């Protein structure tokens, strides 16, 4: 990143100047020894960086076509991947063709590299079809949902380069997660709450937990007098080393978070994602120029610092299966003494969608009302995400079995999708007979993939909406 910055003037210009780690209770903060060492790192906006990289890539001759959705993988008669097909555009809600109908196109190539980010819709299909986790005895992937706002705060409170992470309140000891507060430039602060999706209480509402968090005295004092510029949410991988699939398939490979290289204790995944892309590029080059096999990508990965780093970090997250305090204790031991050298590898608990308890084991959580100054309701936040989808199109969130929401989700789990979705896509509304039915407001979707991950029966499938639709992040 340093070389890149110096020679190419990337928007990477706020070096980390302080690193704090707090344990929060409802009213107090306790500074803990900081396990992170972010010296030499930068606080940036990934939206800005990728926009800049896009310009540079186009200057190098790369063709980038935003606004088109890859809806399906294309196969040849031998089940090799030969490319992707874009979605048809101009289809009405009822499935008929509108005046603006345009057929999707087939994009074929010698190699197809999938870089869809966490829980990629095509990547998941490929991983399943070619049994890419089974091939290397990898465990299932585990996830967290991050909800974030970018604030413009008072000049006097702004410290560019300040980094803060917190644990504890408002989450309980059974729920893994924490917050981050990163000071960027131009009085902007990036603040968010990340909650692991293996939480048990179906009444948990990650969005409301985040709104609650901002009322903590220490956080409130930072944000007071400021305004929210943007809002968004996205899931991220927490499976680490144990969940890395075999990333090569006939005709291509998977790079970045679609495979899953995030380093959980470091809370970073962009560096390993970028490196995996570089390694895939080198492998692809040898395939295209020398006719070698894309299998070498996996060898490159295993010989790289990605492998070493993730192996060292593998036992932190699974340790929290035992609870917050045992998890912290084991993490402390790993960080200061063992550093990944223990001869065993802890396993993940249940897959996130199976970890949700039935509603009758819990009581509904009363969340405070939004005050409109520090905390906000979902529609207000959603407006700030610049999310837009063409209204007249079929819902891109599809139910494998349309009866499951009313037969299972609502009676057994109290409709958890109406609580974990940070965009209020899912609502149970009474029909003309007063019976609660699931309403899917697909236009609101932030493309975070939480529903695809957390639905207890895995009945919700996130598919790509019509090209061009989605959130409009510009400073996130």
């Amino acid at each position, binding site marked *: 990143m340093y070389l890149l910055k110096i020679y190419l003037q990337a928007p990477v210009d706020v070096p980390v100047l302080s690193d704090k780690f707090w344990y929060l209770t409802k009213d107090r903060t306790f500074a803990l020894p900081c396990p992170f060492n972010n010296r030499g790192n930068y606080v940036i906006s990934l939206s800005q960086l990728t926009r800049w990289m896009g310009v540079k890539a186009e200057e190098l001759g790369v063709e980038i076509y935003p606004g088109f959705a890859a809806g399906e993988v294309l196969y040849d008669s031998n089940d090799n991947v030969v490319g992707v097909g874009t979605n048809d555009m101009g289809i009405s809600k009822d499935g008929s063709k509108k005046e603006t109908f345009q057929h999707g196109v087939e994009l074929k190539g010698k190699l197809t590299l999938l870089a869809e980010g966490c829980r990629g819709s095509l990547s998941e299909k490929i991983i399943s079809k070619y049994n890419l986790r089974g091939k290397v005895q990898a465990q299932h992937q585990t996830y967290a949902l991050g909800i974030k706002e970018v604030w413009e705060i008072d000049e006097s409170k702004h410290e560019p380069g300040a980094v803060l992470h917190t644990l504890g309140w408002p989450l309980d000891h059974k729920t893994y997660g924490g917050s981050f507060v990163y000071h960027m430039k131009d009085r902007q602060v990036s603040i968010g709450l990340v909650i692991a999706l293996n939480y048990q209480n179906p009444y948990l509402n990650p969005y409301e937990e985040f709104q609650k968090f901002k009322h903590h005295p220490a956080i409130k004092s930072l944000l007071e007098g400021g305004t929210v510029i943007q809002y968004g949410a996205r899931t991220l991988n927490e499976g680490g080393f144990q969940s890395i699939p075999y990333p090569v398939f006939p005709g291509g490979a998977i790079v970045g978070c679609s495979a899953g290289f995030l380093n959980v204790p470091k809370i970073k995944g962009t560096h390993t994602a970028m490196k995996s892309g570089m390694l895939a590029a080198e492998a692809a080059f040898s395939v295209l120029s020398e006719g070698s096999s894309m299998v070498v990508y996996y060898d490159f990965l295993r010989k790289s610092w990605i492998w070493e780093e993730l192996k060292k970090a593998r036992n932190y997250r699974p340790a929290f299966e035992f609870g917050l305090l045992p998890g912290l204790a084991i993490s402390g031991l790993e960080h200061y003494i063992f550093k990944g050298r223990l001869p065993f590898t802890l396993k993940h608990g249940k897959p996130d969608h199976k970890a949700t308890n039935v509603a009758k084991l819990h009581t509904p959580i009363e969340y405070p009302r939004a005050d409109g100054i520090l905390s906000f309701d979902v529609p207000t936040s959603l407006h700030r995400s610049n999310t837009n989808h063409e209204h007249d199109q079929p819902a891109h969130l599809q139910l494998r079995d349309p009866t499951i929401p009313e037969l299972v989700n609502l009676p057994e789990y109290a409709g958890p999708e109406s609580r974990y979705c940070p965009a209020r896509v899912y609502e149970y509304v009474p029909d003309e007979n007063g019976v609660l039915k699931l309403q899917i407001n697909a236009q609101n979707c932030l493309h975070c993939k939480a529903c695809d991950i957390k639905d207890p029966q895995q009945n919700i499938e996130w598919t790509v909406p019509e090209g061009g639709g989605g959130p*409009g992040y*510009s400073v996130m």
Partner: protein
Amino acid sequence: MKIMVAVKRVVDYAVKIRVKPDKTGVETQNVKMSMNPFCEIALEEALRIRESGLASEVVAVSVGPAQCVDTLRTGLAMGADRGIHVEFKDGLNPLSVAKVLRALVEAEKPGLLILGKQAIDDDCNQTGQMLAGLLKWPQGTFASKVTLDKEKQVATVDREVDGGIETVLLDLPAVITTDLRLNQPRYATLPNIMKAKSKVIKKYTPGDLNVEIKSDLEVLQVTEPPKRKAGVIVSSVDELIDKLQNEARVI
């Protein structure tokens, strides 16, 4: 016949805008920009006229900073034959743009000019009208329907006006500005976007066209509209009348 369409690069309609802290304008840094929706409609109409055989060429024009080229490429991907970019960094206004377009009309000699009725960033609704005035051409603004008669060299335009629909007959060459209900713009398809890369965009500066960009208006301040106050529920008709009379002062 050649059709010239003017397209403007504006903040994307789905973006939540905010005013810059120094109140000099709206924040456009790190904000998604797109072709003005009314300009898309204008371009779509031009393409349909060409596809019906009544025109031979559609030329898309944009006046503005370097990034206008992106907007023109979108226009070319929709189907425009060529693009013209008049580069000018900052401080455009409808009259100056109209003067630039007039100069281009003198060079290109189109038989029809189609513009969006207004841009969604300034809502001026002036450029088309001013251009028609400068050219001394007839104008059909707020068009919801356009029918050309090539033989008689006239255009019949249905205009959306406050009282309903007004139909006017214009001798060509004429200026038409488009309203929302005129058509549904087509998507730029992937193959067309690829093809558009090889289409020509000619560059000019205002100086090349002997136009001086200047404004007789100075923006003093831009502020957000005042926040809506919460509604009040009144307990009786008398209270309502009292509030209307003494607080809102509307009766």
